[in-house]
C-alpha cells in the first residue's frame, strides 16, 4: 500500500493545477493518478489556440497550456502515476487502482482531490433514430483521431451541435480537406462563442442551421445520408421540413457529462443540476478531506477558469492536511431561483476558509438585460448586479463577501429579467 498526504485523481488541467497549488502551500507528499499514457488530459488534442488569456495573459494552444503546468509539476517531487486506472474510492479515503507496473494496489491519503473531468454525450444519449452504420463519432473522438492518431475520419461531414467543440471541429475537418456541409443546432441560438462562429464557420462559409436537428441516419456499412428537420418551439421535428445531406460522417457535439462514478463510489452527494459533487466554498465535498474541481464538478467553458478553481481546491486540500479543520454543520445553503440552473459552490461556510468566494452559475435561458440577485431567506438583498446579456452557454461568475451572509441560513441566486432596458 502507498501512503500520501494528497492523492489527485486525474492529471488533466484541473489535477495539474491542484497539485501545483498544494505543493506551493507546502504539501510535499503528493501523487497524481492519470489513466492515460500522458498528463494534460483533453488539452493534448485541443491543438487550436485561445487558451491561457486569463491565466498566462497570452494566447496558447491546448498542448502549450498543458505543457506549462507539466513543467511546473516536473520542477517538484510530485509523483505522477500514469497508465493507472482508479477502480474505487472509499469514504475512508482509500483509493484502489491498477496499472501495468504495480498491478492492483491501494493508496491511503489524508486528502483527495477529484479531478476526473467529463465525457461526451453520445448518439444513444439523445436517441437519434435510423441505421447503425460506421461514421457516427462524437466530436471529441474525431478530434483525437485527427489531431493525435493522425487519421481523417471522413470526407463529407454533418455536425450536430454548435457548442465550441462542434465549431472547432468544423474548421479542423475543413482545413484537413473535408467538406463540412452543415452545422445543425436544435436551439434557436448557438451554444458556441461568437469568436468561434466567426473564425470556424463564417471564414469557411459553413452554414449553421438553428432550430434544426438530425432526425434520421441512413447507410448500410458507412453513413450515406443524414436527414435534418426543422424543430418547433418545443424542439419537436416539424414534418415536411426534412433536408437530406449526402455525407459519410456525422459528428456529435451534444453535451458533456461530469465523470462522477468514483465520486459516487465514495458515497459523496451529487448535485443533480450541476451533475457534480455538492461543494463548500473551499471546494470540499460533503465527505471531509475530499475536494473536487474542474469539469468533474461542473462543465466549464474556459480552461483558465478550471485552473483558478483547481488552484483553490489544491490550496484548500493543503490547508486541510497541514492545519486540519472541519466544516460547520450549519453552512449557508445557496438555492437556485428563477433563471438559474445551478451554482458552484452550493454551500458557504462562514466559519472557515477565505473571506470572499467566487460563485459560478449558469442561466437556464437566453437573457437580454437582467439583474443577478442574491437574496436571503428573509428577503434581504445581499447582492445585486445588472448584466446586459447572459447565455446558458456562458458560465457567469460573481464574487461574494461571506460576511454579507452572517445571520442567514439560506440564500437564493436568481435573475430578474427586463430590469435594465437599454
Amino acid at each position, binding site marked *: 500500500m502507498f501512503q500520501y498526504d494528497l492523492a489527485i485523481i486525474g492529471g488533466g488541467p484541473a489535477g495539474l493545477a491542484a497539485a501545483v497549488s498544494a505543493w506551493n502551500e507546502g504539501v510535499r507528499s503528493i501523487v497524481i493518478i492519470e489513466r492515460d*499514457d500522458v498528463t494534460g488530459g483533453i488539452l*493534448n488534442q485541443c*491543438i*487550436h*489556440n*485561445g487558451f491561457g*488569456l486569463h491565466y498566462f495573459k497570452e*494566447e496558447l*494552444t*491546448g*498542448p*502549450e497550456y498543458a*505543457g506549462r503546468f507539466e513543467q511546473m509539476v516536473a520542477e517538484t517531487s510530485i509523483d505522477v502515476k500514469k497508465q493507472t486506472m482508479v477502480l474505487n474510492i472509499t469514504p475512508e479515503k482509500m483509493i484502489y487502482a491498477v496499472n501495468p507496473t504495480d498491478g492492483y494496489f491501494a493508496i491511503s491519503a489524508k486528502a483527495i482531490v477529484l479531478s476526473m473531468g467529463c465525457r461526451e454525450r453520445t448518439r444513444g444519449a439523445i436517441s437519434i433514430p435510423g441505421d447503425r452504420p460506421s461514421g457516427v463519432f462524437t466530436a471529441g473522438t474525431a478530434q483525437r483521431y*485527427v*489531431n*493525435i*492518431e*493522425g487519421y481523417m475520419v471522413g470526407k463529407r461531414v454533418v455536425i450536430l451541435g454548435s457548442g465550441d467543440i462542434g465549431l472547432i471541429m468544423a474548421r479542423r475537418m475543413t*482545413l*484537413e480537406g473535408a467538406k463540412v456541409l452543415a452545422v445543425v443546432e436544435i436551439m434557436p441560438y448557438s451554444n458556441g*462563442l*461568437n*469568436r468561434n*462562429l*466567426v*473564425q470556424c464557420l463564417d*471564414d469557411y462559409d459553413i452554414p449553421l442551421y438553428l432550430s434544426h436537428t438530425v432526425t434520421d441516419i441512413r447507410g448500410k456499412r458507412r453513413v450515406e445520408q443524414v436527414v435534418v428537420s426543422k424543430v418547433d418551439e418545443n424542439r419537436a421535428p416539424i414534418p415536411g421540413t426534412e433536408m437530406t445531406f449526402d455525407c459519410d460522417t456525422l459528428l456529435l457535439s451534444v453535451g458533456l457529462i461530469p465523470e462522477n462514478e468514483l465520486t459516487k463510489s465514495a458515497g459523496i452527494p451529487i448535485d443533480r443540476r450541476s451533475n457534480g459533487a455538492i461543494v463548500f466554498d473551499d471546494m470540499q465535498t460533503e465527505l471531509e478531506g475530499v475536494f473536487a474541481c474542474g469539469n468533474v464538478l461542473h462543465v466549464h*467553458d*474556459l480552461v483558465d477558469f478550471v485552473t483558478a478553481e483547481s488552484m483553490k481546491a489544491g490550496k484548500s486540500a493543503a490547508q486541510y492536511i497541514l492545519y486540519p479543520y472541519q466544516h460547520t454543520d450549519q453552512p449557508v445553503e445557496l438555492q437556485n431561483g428563477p433563471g438559474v440552473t445551478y451554482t458552484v459552490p452550493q454551500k458557504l461556510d462562514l466559519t472557515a476558509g477565505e473571506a470572499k468566494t467566487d460563485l459560478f452559475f449558469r442561466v437556464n435561458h437566453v437573457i437580454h438585460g437582467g439583474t443577478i440577485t442574491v437574496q436571503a431567506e428573509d428577503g434581504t438583498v445581499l447582492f445585486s448586479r445588472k448584466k446586459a446579456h447572459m447565455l446558458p452557454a456562458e458560465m457567469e461568475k460573481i464574487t461574494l463577501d461571506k460576511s454579507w451572509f452572517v445571520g442567514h441560513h439560506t440564500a437564493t441566486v436568481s435573475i430578474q429579467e427586463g430590469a435594465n432596458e437599454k
Partner: protein
Amino acid sequence: MTKELICICCPQGCRLTVSDESGELTVTGYTCKRGIEYGKTEATAPTRVITTTVAVTGSSWCRLPVKTAGGVPKSKIFDCMDAINQVTVQAPVHTGDVVLSNILETGVDVVAARTIE
C-alpha cells in the same frame, strides 16, 4: 465604408464597427486595445493563426501539433496547409522550435506547440 465585425481576439467577442468615413480607419465598440488592431487588420487585410499538426518520427507520438507564430493572410490558409502538410519532423522537438520558416514568404514561421522527446 462601414463594417460590423465580431472581434476574435478573446472569448469576449466584442462587436466592432470599422469605418473609413472620416478619411482614416476608425474602430468603435472595442473593450481592449487589441480590438482596434483587429478591426483595422480585418477590414483591410485579414489574417488568421493556423493551428494544425505535422508528421513526427522517432517517437510514440505520430503527430506534432504546430501553429503559425503569427497571423497569415486569410486568403493563403489552404496554401499554407498544403505547405505544412509536406513537413515531417524528427523527434526530439521542443515547444517553440521552428518546423517551417517564413511559410510562403509571409514572414511567419510555423513552430512546434508541444515538446516530444
